[in-house]
């Protein structure tokens, strides 16, 4: 079994396109370090990519906070995307598949929600938006030679 690397809480600034690549890189490292499978990693990274881009484009920039979040024996990862931008007036509409205020596909928020286990949207018009997602790795127990 690969030794899971130490994953510590960290904060990553989101202010430019290059920062988005950095966000994905950091999430990939943390998820791989905690033992997420390739599919689980890809889902979490993609959700993070969507939310970080929203923070940058709609929220005018902010940061991501990355915290390990184990549940029982399952390793987990919690990611918060924080901005102090315009906030979201109509959350229901924003969460709907295909709704976009710009030229996007309108799948960022709703899609990210489907890619993770927990999804929390906290927003206040004029004050900013925080989206927190959590995913747990379903670690397949390594086969024991002699199960008792």
């Amino acid at each position, binding site marked *: 079994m690969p030794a899971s690397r130490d994953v510590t809480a960290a904060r990553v600034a989101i202010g430019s396109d290059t920062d988005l690549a950095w966000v994905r890189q950091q999430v990939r490292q943390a998820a791989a370090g905690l033992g997420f499978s390739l599919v689980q990693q*890809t889902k979490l990274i993609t959700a993070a990519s969507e939310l970080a881009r929203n923070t940058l484009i709609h929220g005018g920039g902010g940061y991501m906070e990355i915290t390990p979040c184990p549940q029982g024996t399952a390793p987990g990862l919690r990611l918060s995307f924080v901005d102090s931008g315009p906030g979201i007036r109509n959350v229901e509409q924003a969460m709907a598949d295909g709704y976009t205020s710009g030229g996007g*596909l309108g799948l960022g928020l709703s*899609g990210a929600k489907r890619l993770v286990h927990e999804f929390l949207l906290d927003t206040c018009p004029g004050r900013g938006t925080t989206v927190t997602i959590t995913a747990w790795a379903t670690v397949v127990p390594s086969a024991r030679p002699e199960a008792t």
Partner: protein
Amino acid sequence: MTDQVGANEAAAAQVCSFLQRRREQIAQRWADASLFRTVFTLSREEAVEACKAVVDALADVALSGRPEDIAAPAFGTVRDQLGRMAASRARAGFTPAQISEEVAALRAPVVELLRGEFTDSSEATAQEGVLALTVLMGSLRLVVMETALSAGEELIARQRLQLLEVATPVIKLWEGIVAVPLIGTLDSARSQVVMESLLEAIVAQRAQYAILDITGVPTVDSLVAQHLMKTVAAARLMGAECIVSGIRPAIAQTIVHLGIDLGTILTRAGLADALAYALAQQGIEVSAHRMARASTR
């Protein structure tokens, strides 16, 4: 207040005449300083000449009466030379802080020379002169750092552009079939380049099939998917059919959850499958033997 301005101007004029008078000695001393000595390794004459050019520029800046002005036109004459020197130090592995220290080290020998001109270095004119010279040398240091940094930025921007082009080659796989193996992050700038070079290739090669292989793209989120769809649509307008290949299993699952509908896009598992499809469409029968030859073309 006006007295102060007058004193500053007098000090600057004093520094200017000092630099002009002692040009030779200053240049000789600087040529031994590590900055010039290590950049101009071939001949000492060359180092001395380079030093003189800097002394002349500083004298001109002093003449303008504003030794603190790093935008002074007089710096323009040596900006190139200073930039090349800083770049040469950077290539030798020196950090910006170390280069800055080397420039700072030029101050002591010239201040010492100026002090030596006064019998009593505590008198007011001596102090004002040293102060003006110190400010002037501080400006020189800033000019060098500014030049070095902007040279670095330019280099990075140029490399990034080169990388964009290098990383998106359009390959002719067969008569009428072109392919782009995409590698790395497909951001907006990247996908713009991809779309342009693909459309150009479609026209130039009279291609009827264009294959976009995304095996090397680590993340496909809604923006990347949108870029792909736009590229496919544009290729269609040019009369070519687009095939997207190399969607890995983890990415396929993620795309489905994200809710992206690639239903209108023709996809194949690998580049070879996409090529086989395009060949078959053109009525070329593909045997295992034939495919092996095609992939070595």
